[in-house]
């Protein structure tokens, strides 16, 4: 058994070191590209997901969101609850918001969107909307009758859905906002973009303004309280801490909140799996063709090897070992290229995508998974042609009859 393996390794080794260098380099290059292709989409997806998550936490939900109890429209005594939550050591800040849908009107254009009523000071402790202002200024506590629009509402500033926006509102313009039948004019104080289209399709006004429009002024009500915790705090631990504080409202981590993101993630995951399957099929075909061509060129040699008594399985194993070595080298080169080249490069120079900027995130577990699949493809892709040819009649191999 050992001597057979030794002969297979010997033949494979000599074939690689003394065989056609061009074919070896080409095969390894192609397999490197296939591996990169297999992990690239996963890395992109991981990068996009990470970006989505960051945007979600930074501009919309914070780490944890508290919503009214079931069948309740509002959280009551919102500021008391905020104080209670802020007493937790790992909580950096909370923001109680009123949230409703409204109609924006500017000149002839009218669109719908989400309107948040916020305390600007509290909001800046939880989200980074203030830093996302691209024109004008963020709200301040005493502001009344002023509004901050997301770029998907205002239009302009590279909005993705320009045709569904107000068509180019600028700071200082006045827009009409209609909520539950009440219409009021607001002066645009600022325009923001998070580069996350869902967050950019909203508007922020002072909580007092929205209370007034909803007819709930002075009642200390909120529709959600977003909570920001220190970096690295586990959201589920925060939820447990809130529950132990006696918070009876509905507590959701941002993970649960981001339902649509998971939908997008799952869709992208499906596409990734399809692309992986295609990539593996291509890998299989390439390995098959390379080994087949290699083997056909060595038909006579296989015949001679069989004639002098080298066993068929030893000959087949020598070709499989070659393919495995090609695949292994391709995987290592591809991994090094991704780990030390492309991924760090995109971290230093993020790629511009419609959702914002994105960096590749190489997941080692995914890379190992792809490496194993590529290895299996190389084994199957080499066993079939090697076995088929080595099984042929000895004289047919030698004399090519």
């Amino acid at each position, binding site marked *: 058994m*050992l*001597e*057979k393996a*030794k*002969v297979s390794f*010997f033949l494979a080794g*000599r*074939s690689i070191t*003394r*065989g056609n260098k061009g074919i070896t380099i080409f095969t390894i290059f192609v397999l490197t590209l296939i591996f990169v292709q297999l992990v690239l989409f996963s890395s992109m997806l991981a990068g996009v997901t990470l970006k989505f998550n960051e945007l979600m936490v930074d501009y919309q939900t914070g780490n944890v969101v508290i919503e009214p109890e079931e069948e309740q429209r509002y959280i009551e005594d919102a500021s008391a609850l905020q104080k209670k939550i802020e007493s937790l050591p790992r909580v950096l800040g909370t923001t109680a918001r009123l949230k409703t849908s409204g109609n924006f009107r500017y000149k002839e254009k009218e669109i719908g969107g989400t309107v948040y009523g916020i305390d600007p000071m509290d909001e800046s402790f939880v989200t980074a909307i203030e830093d996302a202002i691209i024109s004008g200024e963020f709200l301040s506590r005493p502001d009344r009758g002023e509004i901050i629009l997301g770029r998907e509402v205002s239009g302009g500033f590279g909005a993705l859905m320009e045709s569904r926006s107000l068509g180019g509102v600028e700071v200082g313009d006045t827009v009409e906002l209609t909520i539950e039948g009440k219409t009021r004019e607001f002066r645009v104080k600022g325009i923001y973009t998070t580069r996350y289209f869902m967050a950019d399709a909203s508007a922020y006004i002072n909580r007092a303004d929205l209370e007034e429009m909803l007819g709930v002024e002075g009642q200390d009500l909120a529709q959600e309280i977003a909570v920001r915790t220190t970096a690295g705090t586990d959201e589920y631990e925060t939820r447990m801490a809130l529950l132990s504080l006696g918070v009876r409202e509905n507590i959701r981590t941002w993970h649960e909140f981001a339902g649509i993101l998971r939908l997008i993630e799952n869709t992208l995951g499906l596409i990734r799996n399809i692309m992986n399957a295609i990539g593996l099929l291509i890998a299989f075909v390439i390995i098959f063709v390379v080994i087949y061509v290699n083997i056909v060129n060595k038909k*006579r*040699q296989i015949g*001679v*090897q*069989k*004639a*002098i*008594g*080298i*066993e*068929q399985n*030893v000959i087949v194993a020598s070709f499989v070992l070659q393919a495995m070595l090609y695949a292994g080298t391709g995987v290592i080169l591809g991994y090094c290229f991704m780990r030390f080249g492309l991924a760090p490069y995109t971290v230093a120079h993020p790629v511009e995508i419609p959702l914002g900027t994105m960096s590749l995130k190489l997941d080692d577990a995914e890379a190992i998974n792809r490496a194993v699949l590529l290895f299996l493809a190389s084994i199957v892709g080499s066993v079939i042609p090697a076995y088929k040819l080595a099984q042929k009649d*000895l*004289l047919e191999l*030698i004399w090519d009859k």
Partner: protein
Amino acid sequence: MENERENERENERENESGIQKNDTIIEGMDIVRTFRMGEVQVRALRGVSVKIRRGEFVAIMGPSGSGKTTLLNQLGILDTPNSGKVVIDGTDTSALSEKEKGKFRLHNLGYVFQDYALLPELNAAENVYLSLMMQGKSKVEYESAAAEILTAVGLGDRLAQLPSKMSGGQQQRVSIARALAHSPIILFADEPCANLDSETSKEVLDLFKKFNTEYGQTIVMVTHEEWHAAYTDRVIKLKDGMLE
């Protein structure tokens, strides 16, 4: 009269080498081999029976298409006859499976092909010791055996040379060394000089003769050159797939 003198000469040679040639090492019995070429059946061998004794140097000769190589392939169990059988050193090879035949070839038979058939990615020594590796010999054993046999064929200084850097004669000598490295009971050579000039052919035949006389190596060689017959003990003549 001529035959008697030939026998006497043979006996003298046997006494010199110490090898007794009276026991049969290969016996081909009523071998029939038919090939199908498209719609046509070609009867390459039509019931050939031969006996070759241990230590004999036998030439198989005959015109083109007479079945020389086909007979060699049957005797060397590189091919399987349609009917008849080949017994080598007491083993009925028709009873062996393909795997067993491979093992039998590995341990007992050696081959020299017309176009050398060396593995181009292996150097001279590696080509020679490949079958020894397969037999499970240790590195020291197979390397020293390869060096020894290559020295014996005059290539002791070219162990690491690749076939592509060698002349035809040198390649054929490596091929002979490969065939003899594992001390086979029979060496089969299929037109070993076909691609060589007369001078080199003579060198190769001298080598065969040396191994035959000095070590009692049984050799079965296919050739179409009449002058090669002078190196052999006996000629088996074929015509149209039958013994002449």
